[in-house]
């Protein structure tokens, strides 16, 4: 859980992207909640059977995280350490209640499709993790950006899963048929095992990708450090 946080005290010698920028982009890619931190698996597996549900769930979580991070960052110096978790959770729960009513007001079908999973955002470990490890230690602006970045990264991951599962499982993308009416659906991908298989495949893909780029980076750094030996 304790990975390198892109926190404000990351004193980098060379001119790097500003800390505010890093706060936002960390969640999108480098610390993607699903593909890197492997947090929030419950909605990731349960709600990604269609792209629409995945995006709705992702955006709901984004909103919850941005607003909860803002609240928590505001009171971070007032809350005694012993009761911080309870405080964080009640703030997250407040945001979740707001989102619950918002989704209901915007679209009843989406609300019904997401079912109990919107109230369950409150128990998504991702929200509490960000509150504990980021919003409770950082100023309000950066906390909001962190919440937004993490939320959008989560949305991106959910959409990745939802795309594979909807295209293979129903032959549609966002409800738009891709293969005509004679499509042979892979029923499995709409069922829970399909969620696990798809998640595993995406994790594999992104891990391979990350390892490759890390290797290239190390090779580049090594080449910079050592003067290139001219082959005899």
């Amino acid at each position, binding site marked *: 859980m304790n990975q390198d946080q892109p926190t404000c005290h990351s004193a980098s010698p060379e001119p790097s992207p500003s800390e505010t920028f890093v706060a936002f982009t960390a969640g999108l890619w480098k610390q993607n909640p699903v593909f890197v931190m492997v947090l929030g698996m419950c909605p990731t597996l349960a709600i990604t059977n269609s792209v629409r549900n995945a995006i709705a769930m992702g955006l709901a979580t984004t909103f919850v995280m941005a607003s909860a991070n803002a609240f928590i960052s505001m009171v971070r110096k007032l809350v005694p350490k012993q009761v911080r978790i309870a405080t964080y959770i009640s703030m997250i729960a407040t945001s979740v209640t707001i989102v619950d009513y918002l989704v209901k007001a915007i679209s009843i079908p989406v609300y019904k499709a997401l079912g109990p999973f919107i109230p369950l955002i409150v128990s998504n470990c991702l929200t509490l993790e960000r509150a504990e490890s980021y919003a409770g230690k950082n100023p309000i602006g950066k906390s909001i950006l962190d919440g937004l970045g993490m939320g959008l990264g989560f949305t991106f991951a959910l959409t990745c899963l939802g795309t594979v599962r909807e295209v293979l499982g129903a*032959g549609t993308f966002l409800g738009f048929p891709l*293969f*005509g009416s*004679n*499509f*042979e659906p*892979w*029923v*499995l*991908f709409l*069922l829970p*095992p399909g969620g696990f*298989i798809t998640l595993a495949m995406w994790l594999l893909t992104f891990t391979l990708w990350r390892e490759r780029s890390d290797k290239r980076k190390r090779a580049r750094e090594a080449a910079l450090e050592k003067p290139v030996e001219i082959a005899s």
Partner: protein
Amino acid sequence: MKPVIELRTSPHLHAPRSVETIMRNVVYALLPICAYAVWLFGASALALLVTTTAACVATEIFICKMSGRESSVGDFSVIITGLLLGLILPPGFPLWMAAVGGFIAVAPGKMLFGGLGFNVFNPALVARAFLQAAFPVAIMGYTPALAVHRLSEFIPTTFAIPLIKAAPLAGWIEKTRVDAFSGATPLMLEKFDHVHSELWPLLIGQRAGSSGETPALLIFLCGAYLILRRFMDWRIPAAMLTSALVSSAAFYFSDPSRYPNPFFMLLSGGMMLGAMFMATDPVASPVTPLGIWIYGSLIGLITVLIRLKGGLAEGVMYAILLANAMSPLIDNVTQPRSYGARGKEVA
């Protein structure tokens, strides 16, 4: 000078016997069944067997290359997986789905665990379970054996375009059927239509079913070859068939009008192929003798329960997969007392 006494460490084997020899002999034992399947179901069965084997071999080569390992195709185990997968699919199964199955069998079913010797489940059954969950309609597309033009023309579903629904089979079955054959397997007839089947066609395999599961007698003989050459443990098929016979006899004698003849249970579906070639997977079955008896009886019992009490017509696949999952546990509780240890102490 020649040494007077040659000292070697154990194991003291009389004959050189490697994984490769055993696996090659299993392939030999499977070939008559494949040939008979092609004769029964025609060109489609041949295409199916070739596709599954090619897909399995290609996946293994690809994964070995990707993970920088030496290619393990040479030990023949992947060919067994491919042939078995072809034998447990319906003969008219669309080839593109069969290729997907071959990939699933080898990539997640075997290589992800670390290759031969590490797989928890029988790879071919993993693929079959995946295909059954993914394409529930296609996997029920059974066609009658000995159709008229089977050797010269393909079953129409064989060449279904990937991702597109195959043409319905009913018309083709109507056109080519001989006497009273229908597309349903004897187990489906028994379960859903309460039609009893004769035992003789089951014995020689002239019935609808997966391409290689039908000739019970031939499968038994091929298995017997492996048992006689001691390439597999006779206890597994013995335990599985006995337990299936006993448990289905118990059902039969409790109410002969409702439950089928126990010998029908033994000869129908994939019971014989499962007992001889699937449950005997040397990696996924227990090693202690007592454990093997427990494992085999468990498979027979679960199969009968699924067939008679469950929603599915056939239960061999899930029974074997379940028993595979339990085999480490079975091994653990049936460890023999180690020499010199007191009571139930485990070494």
